[in-house]
């Protein structure tokens, strides 16, 4: 054995760091990442077209960007990305039969799970942020000199990042114990999350997207996409951030506990 290696074994933090580094590398190389990177080009392409078509109508351009933000990023891209990456944290190891390469290494199982989760969240945040950066600044190019613009970008990117962290934690939790987690995730992400927005009362607070929308710009009622607007007042941003953080932490905690205690068998 290498005398430089701690004979007592690595700490949780060391396990986390090692797995994080490996999956940042492996995650970049997957076909899934290439597809999602291309997906992120869609709003950029739309931004370019809108800027050309709506040249000189800066207020309309900003309104279109807000629609893209709500419809594409909030209700679609971060959900689909989180669904595929989150459920794959465990599923791709069991389906690809590679889990034993991780679990027979001197690594804390919690570190393995958290390291892979963090690596995938980082990849997703980078992909979404890059896409958001280009679409945001293409459409708001006329406001380059306004410092508030940059703060706004950081706020949106931060909110999307938090949404990714929360959704991924939830889907990763489903992936630790469900064989068809992706189907359940699809039903949740594109069924419940959308439908519940139109339920009367405060039922919509039982969805993640409610808190995501609470962190996004307010939109005026009316127009073709008004069906996507809130029926109730959004939660306060601080409350939304807190709840998304708690959701992410709670599901991560549960997922780590399950991953540590559950045995994973490869299907014959």
């Amino acid at each position, binding site marked *: *054995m290498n005398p430089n*290696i701690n004979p*007592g*074994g690595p700490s949780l933090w060391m396990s986390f760091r090692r797995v994080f580094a490996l999956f940042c590398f492996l995650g970049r190389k997957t076909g899934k990442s290439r597809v999602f990177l291309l997906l992120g080009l869609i709003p950029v392409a739309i931004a370019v077209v809108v800027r050309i078509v709506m040249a000189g109508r800066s207020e309309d351009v900003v309104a279109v960007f807000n629609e893209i933000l709500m419809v594409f990023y909030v209700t679609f891209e971060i959900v689909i990305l989180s669904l595929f990456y989150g459920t794959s944290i465990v599923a791709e190891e069991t389906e690809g039969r590679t889990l*034993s390469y991780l*679990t027979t290494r*001197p690594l804390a*199982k919690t570190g393995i799970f958290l390291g892979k989760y963090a690596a995938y969240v980082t990849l997703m945040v980078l992909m979404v942020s890059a896409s958001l950066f280009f679409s945001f600044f293409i459409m708001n190019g006329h406001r380059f000199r306004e410092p508030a613009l940059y703060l706004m970008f950081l706020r949106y990117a931060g909110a999307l990042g938090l949404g990714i962290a929360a959704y991924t934690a939830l889907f990763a939790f489903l992936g630790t114990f469900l064989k068809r987690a992706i189907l359940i995730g699809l039903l949740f992400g594109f069924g419940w999350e959308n439908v519940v927005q139109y339920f009367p009362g405060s039922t919509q607070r039982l969805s993640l997207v409610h808190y995501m929308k609470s962190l996004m710009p307010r939109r005026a009622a009316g127009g073709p996409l008004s069906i996507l607007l809130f029926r109730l007042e959004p939660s306060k941003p601080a409350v939304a951030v807190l709840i998304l953080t708690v959701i992410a932490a709670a599901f991560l905690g549960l997922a780590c506990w399950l991953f540590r205690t559950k045995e994973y068998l490869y299907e014959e």
Partner: protein
Amino acid sequence: MTAVIETKNLSKWYGNVLGLSDVSLEIESGITGLLGPNGAGKSTFMKLVTGQMKPNIGRVSIDGQDVWNNFRLFSRIGFCPEQDAFYADVTGWEFLTGLLRLSGYSGADAADRASRTLKIVELSEDKDRKIRSYSRGMRQRVKFAQAVAHDPDIIILDEPLSGLDPLGKRRLIRLVKDFQSEGKTIIVSSHVLPEIEAMTSRIVMIHQGKILAQGDIHSIRDLIESYPHMISLKCGDPRAVAARFVSDTSILKMSFGPDGRSLVVETHKRDAFFNRLQAVVLETAIEVEEITSPDDNLQAVFDYLVVK
């Protein structure tokens, strides 16, 4: 010698299916062959020893420490899984260095070790090719490489020779023996009997989740008293030799080989037969070309035990 790996009343089941039943073993350093047909429980045993599964009953320990969820022990273990599985789109070099980093090596150390190990398994020239473009034999070798690259003192190899051509098998057997000479504890599983026999005479025979026999293959063979030893004798005049043994009560059966130059004898008293044979050869001056024991191999012992 003290046991490195110890299992006590180890049992594991999957729902209603029994994977392993009441297995108590002490495994010392050197090569131990785990032999049994597919589904016998070999992989279950290896997964329990490597901490991938938790026993339902009993315990498995390494140097007295329980294995399950004891990840600090795992720097001492190298595991080569049976399944032909790798991370997508990585090269042999990336695969090996990535796993070495997981074992705690720095970038430079990981590169150095990966380089040395790939040389040992003769994959240096193909290290930058994607693993998915490797032949089955190359994939087996890179899988073996990841099990030994971090210099573990316990190496668990699940069907390591599967998919290798005869030359590749011979090379890997030589490598395994080299690691044995370094004082490592190695468990190798196979359902192909000559493969195990080529690596070690210390075996554990497993069938339907239970240990059928363990120890030295020749000793096990000796213990099977209800089955006679088969001895094949090749000489110029086998009939003359047979004539001398006709009245010998220790001989159960004699038959002649199809080539007319060999005599196959079945006896319960092998030592007595050899003593008598020595005398016969001296008396008759018959030139004996070859003496072999056709059933003194794992296949015969395994067949006997399973039938039993």
